[in-house]
């Protein structure tokens, strides 16, 4: 039946396939190919070295530092975003006057370009006349201003703060949809049975929200692991590479020191890590779905 649809279907999906094939799949395969070369076009160097770049990568302390930086950044920012996003979603779920306006206000950080939000935070974190130091000193938490972006430990946490500000709304939105899909009757039944608020949350809200939590976590972890623009503008990877992430390190290799071969190897390693993370999440989601 309806066999004649193959031709129109092919014609309809063809443009999309062309774009994705030529500008997404081909480049990624090509990047993998280049990662097997020692390639620095400015010096006219280009020859095949097999897996040498990857062998070098495994012993490159800067690669491992950027890997750990990225992992630390992702773990902390995604956990905070989940906590804050859940709180926001619960607050925005009920019905109250001005709900639409509050939802719109909460969405603003998400819509602002990351680069612009990085500039806004750079100004707030400014050591000499930044708002954060001023407020902390006013309420007596700080006696002297801190150099947020110039300190080896503080800089990473400043990045996390800016990321949490920017993307908690996204998590909140996904969880809000989840909350709205839980039928009201379930809550009523539980209340009739005399369940307390905490019990209702643990027995009804949380389990039914879990798939949405996993999806939000998947998207956020992937985004955090490929973070580039926020770091590029806010810290540039400094001080002393303590905030350099995988994407930033790959970018510097590719476009600043022009090591196309090794830079591609770092980019491919980033890709593979992201792939592993998504595979793990997807298998979790599957198990959730079936169990």
């Amino acid at each position: 039946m309806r066999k004649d649809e193959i031709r129109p279907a092919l014609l309809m999906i063809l443009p999309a396939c062309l774009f994705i094939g030529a500008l997404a799949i081909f480049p990624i395969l090509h990047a993998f190919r280049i990662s097997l070369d020692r390639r620095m076009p400015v010096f006219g160097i280009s020859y095949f070295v097999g897996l040498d770049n990857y062998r070098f990568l495994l012993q490159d302390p800067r690669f491992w530092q950027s890997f750990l930086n990225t992992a630390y950044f992702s773990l902390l920012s995604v956990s905070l975003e989940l906590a804050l996003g859940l709180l926001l979603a619960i607050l925005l779920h009920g019905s109250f006057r001005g709900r639409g306006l509050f939802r719109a206000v909460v969405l603003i950080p998400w819509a602002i370009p990351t680069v612009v939000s990085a500039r806004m935070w750079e100004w707030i974190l400014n050591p000499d006349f930044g708002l954060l130091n001023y407020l902390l000193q006013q309420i007596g938490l700080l006696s002297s201003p801190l150099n947020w972006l110039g300190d080896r430990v503080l800089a990473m946490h400043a990045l996390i703060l800016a990321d949490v500000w920017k993307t908690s709304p996204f998590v909140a939105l996904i969880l809000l949809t989840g909350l709205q899909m839980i039928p009201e009757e379930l809550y009523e039944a539980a209340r009739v049975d005399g369940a307390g608020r905490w019990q209702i949350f643990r027995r009804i809200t949380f389990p039914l929200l879990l798939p949405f939590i996993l999806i939000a976590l998947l998207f956020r972890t992937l985004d955090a692991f490929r973070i580039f623009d926020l770091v590029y503008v806010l810290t540039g990877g400094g001080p002393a590479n303590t905030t350099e992430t995988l994407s930033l390190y790959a970018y510097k290799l590719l476009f600043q020191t022009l090591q196309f071969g090794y830079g591609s190897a770092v980019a491919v390693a980033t890709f593979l890590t992201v792939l592993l993370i998504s595979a793990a999440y997807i298998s979790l989601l599957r198990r959730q779905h079936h169990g």
Partner: protein
Amino acid sequence: MDSRTRRVARRSIFWALLTGMATFCLLPFLWQLLTSLKPTSEISTLPPLLPTRPVFDHYLAVFQDRPFGRFILNSVIVASLTTVSCLSIGSLAAFAIAKLQFRGRNLLLFLALSISMFPPIAAVSPLYLIIRILGWRDTYAGLVVPYTTFALPLAIWILWSVFREIPDELYLAALVDGCTPFQVFVRIFLPLAAPGIGAAAILVFIFAWNEFLYALTFTSSEAMRTIPVAIALFPGLHEVPWGEMAAATIVVTTPLVLLVLFFQRRIVSGLTAGSVKG
């Protein structure tokens, strides 16, 4: 009595938390706005928090001393072209996947999803070579074409979930009446899916407006900069002109803030359809 005090307490906590959250979300934006209105002499001192006498010098400087009008125009052109091309290509594919019978439809959806997962940095250097070979450096095409590719998964997922909701009977009845699948798509499904297409359009537009890595890499002349690149490369080598920077960030975020305020509902439905269904 006791339960009433509890209810009042609960409501106060609710509003306190909500106001706190809203302040947290708005504060950086508002602080930037206040800074942009302060004369340069007041920027480097705290207090006062509020400008004693608001000035618009920084806004003038952004448009007179720097080509911010041009940057905004570039971003508008790139984001609009991306939205149009991405939605025309994406809605065709989404319709075929949602309504036509052929093998490999799930594979296509999965492919789209995996494209949305890979890190932009992994494709940037081969893309750079392709764009150089095509002579597309410093052109709109050099940004619009890759943006279309990378926004396609988002568009396909949202539109697929929209088309899937439209009953099959409509499609089959139109076929019986002698329409080709393409005619059904244009005449029946596109109009019915208009709200969903609007949601996808806003999201693709915001994606293209905000993209940074490719814009930074594929453009080199100042006249071709998009807003994120202009903001990133704003400061001089040694000092940042904070007043102008604040004015520039306000100028480029205001349209987005308005977009969000007006289309909040649509953005929410689009985002959640694209990320949660399936």
